[in-house]
């Protein structure tokens, strides 16, 4: 086992390498490109076998990934943001084929306006696609989760593709110390892919995921996919346990940081959650009973774990790095549904939206959110959903708008 500095992208590539993947359909997009460049380089130098094919789009890439998985080979691919959305039609299709493979998504906010920096609206657009989702908060987790994802995808109780999500920039281009497991130990943990009845062959045409006419059979297949995804929660726990035994690192479905005795909790996903850990440490020094919950597994949603971990808390601040237009934070909605009707549910479940397009969340803002939910407990009033946004930021936007207005006038696009 070697400890070295790796970017999140490098860690994803190492995950694919250690899982001994056979086939990598690829299409580049910022900030994912380094993943496929690294794998291509290793194939070039003969460090790994397997085949990498650059496709003409992400739509074709996911089609190729699903088709290859349906022949029984082990497949890895990676994309981000607009690429994931371009492939959206095929995400639903290949999961319906029950073709297991692993797709790394490097989160990046969606257009328009366009950005390169991260938020989770890309990955959450794939929430209902039938892909399982693991969200990472460190480069180590990216590597480990990729290995675990193959076990999850290929498990006979699941047989679904899995997305491993890492945040652009904050993980993709950030180097951190990462333990690279020994190749043999990793191979033994992941095992070989037993495709069983998946035997799609070009030379022997047969139907994969046939057309069905009528809602009866259609509902059957769709609901079976749902049940398989639901199985993922228990299977994930088994895999995490085994991973911990093999490598000494425990990646729970929901990370609970200093949460045991906490009256107050932050709940958030992805790499920004480590900022919340920092805030928890500082608040604890000031005597706060506060902690963090971080769902790593989003699909299936680890409902039982969440219910248990959220029970009997005074107040919870859910910080969503995403926004469902016309509703608000997606994780907030999901947690509300997880808690509805439970006697031990926290009375305050406050919603905050922050980190859109990589907008930083300062430690002071975490302190302020903690104050806000404590005040809510005192007053009995849950605060209205809040976008983390400052007067200074709005002033900057107003400045840009004023410049744009003047330019448009000078260019004669609008009347003076």
């Amino acid at each position: 086992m070697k400890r070295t500095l790796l970017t999140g992208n490098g860690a994803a590539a190492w995950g694919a390498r250690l899982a001994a993947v056979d086939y990598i359909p690829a299409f580049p997009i910022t900030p994912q490109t380094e993943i496929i460049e690294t794998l291509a380089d290793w194939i070039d130098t003969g460090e790994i076998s397997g085949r990498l094919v650059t496709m003409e789009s992400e739509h074709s890439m996911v089609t190729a990934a699903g088709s290859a998985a349906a022949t029984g080979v082990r497949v890895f691919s990676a994309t981000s943001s607009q690429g994931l959305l371009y492939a959206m039609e095929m995400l639903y299709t290949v999961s319906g084929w029950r073709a297991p493979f692993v797709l790394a998504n490097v989160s990046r906010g969606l257009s328009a306006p366009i950005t390169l920096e991260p938020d989770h609206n890309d990955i959450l657009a794939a929430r209902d696609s039938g892909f399982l989702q693991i969200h990472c908060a460190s480069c180590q987790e990216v590597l480990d989760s990729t290995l675990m994802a193959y076990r999850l995808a290929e498990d006979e109780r699941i047989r679904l593709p899995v997305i491993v999500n890492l945040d652009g920039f904050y993980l993709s281009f950030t180097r951190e110390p990462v333990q690279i497991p020994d190749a043999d130990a990793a191979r033994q943990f992941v095992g070989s892919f037993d495709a069983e009845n998946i035997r799609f062959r070009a030379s022997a045409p047969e139907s994969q995921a046939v057309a069905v006419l009528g809602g009866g059979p259609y509902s059957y297949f769709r609901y079976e996919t749902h049940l398989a995804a639901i199985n993922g929660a228990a299977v994930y726990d088994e895999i995490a346990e085994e991973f911990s035994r093999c490598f000494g690192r425990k990646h729970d479905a929901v990370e609970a940081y200093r949460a045991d005795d906490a009256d107050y909790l932050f709940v958030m996903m992805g790499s920004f959650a480590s900022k919340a850990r920092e805030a928890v440490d500082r608040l604890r020094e000031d005597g706060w009973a506060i902690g963090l919950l971080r769902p790593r597994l989003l699909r299936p949603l680890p409902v039982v774990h969440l219910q248990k971990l959220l029970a009997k808390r005074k107040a919870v601040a859910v910080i969503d790095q995403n926004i469902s237009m016309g509703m608000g934070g997606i994780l907030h909605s999901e947690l509300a549904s997880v808690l509805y009707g439970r006697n031990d549910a926290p009375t305050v479940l406050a919603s905050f939206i922050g980190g859109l397009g990589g907008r930083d969340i300062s430690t002071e803002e975490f302190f302020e959110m903690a104050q806000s939910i404590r005040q809510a407990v005192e007053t009995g009033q849950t605060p209205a959903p809040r976008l983390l946004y400052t007067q200074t930021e709005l002033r900057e936007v107003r400045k840009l708008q004023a410049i744009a207005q003047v330019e448009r006038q000078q260019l004669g696009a609008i009347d003076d």
Partner: protein
Amino acid sequence: MYRIRFHGRGGQGMKTASRILGTAFFLEGYEVQDAPRYGAERRGAPIFAYVRADRAPINERGIIRHPDLVIVADDSLVPVPAAGVLAGITDHSLMLINSAEKEQVWKQRLNHSGTILTLPVAADVTERAELPYVGAACAGAAARLIGVISEAALEQAIKDELSDLGADIVNKNLHNAVAAYQAMASHAGLVKEGSLVSAVDYEAPDWIDLPFDDARISAPTIHAAATSVLVKTGLWRTQRPVIDFDHCKGCWWICSSYCPDGAINVVDAKPVIDYDHCKGCMVCVAQCPSHAIEAIPEKQAKADEDATQLEIGEIT
């Protein structure tokens, strides 16, 4: 925790500098986080890279708000607001500027009460084209200013980070980095670890409720032509392509077709480079079949230009 920020232009090796320093810290037993930050990647545009190092695992992420050490590889960036060189600088922050100008000049100019040092190896680097090697020098100087990184760890880090580029490049970088490391000997350990934010006494964010603006204001639209003409992307150039019309065969279409920015126009069947918008990618230099386009360091080209202007001025 140590928080260090490197500022430079794309192509000057700031990402490499952050990696060299990150690896050197790691070799000394520190937990490390290093990362570059940029928009759409491009040569010559302002970028920064940062390093965090601590004895304990690091939970902080993203941009460094209050750096302990800021290294500026290219002093032309200091007055560029978008480069953010001065962002979050406090009395505690040490600034190291790669500049031919004196420390006292920078101290006055920036009205900075903390320490400002200049990087003396800058004298060796007369041409911007040589600036890529400045990355290693910046990392070397930073390592000594921080004071917890040995020369051996610095050298090993350079070898680890650059070995793919061949022995010549490694040696040149080693030479520059070690020279900078030694030049900073009298300031060794001057950089002190910054403190953590306190939950007791902190400045509350000036949060607002974002107001509704109707779509005439809030839609991100540009409906006027050619606004990008107003952006002088020529400022990003570190090298300037110059056409030698003695050798130009006047085919005109090769350089102008290959120019990714449409910055080569054809006037009277001759190519003319629009220096307001040429970013200095040098694709034209590589493509010209008669090798009639030369790459000249921007600083030199500007000096030549000024000299010519002066001559004209004297005549008239």
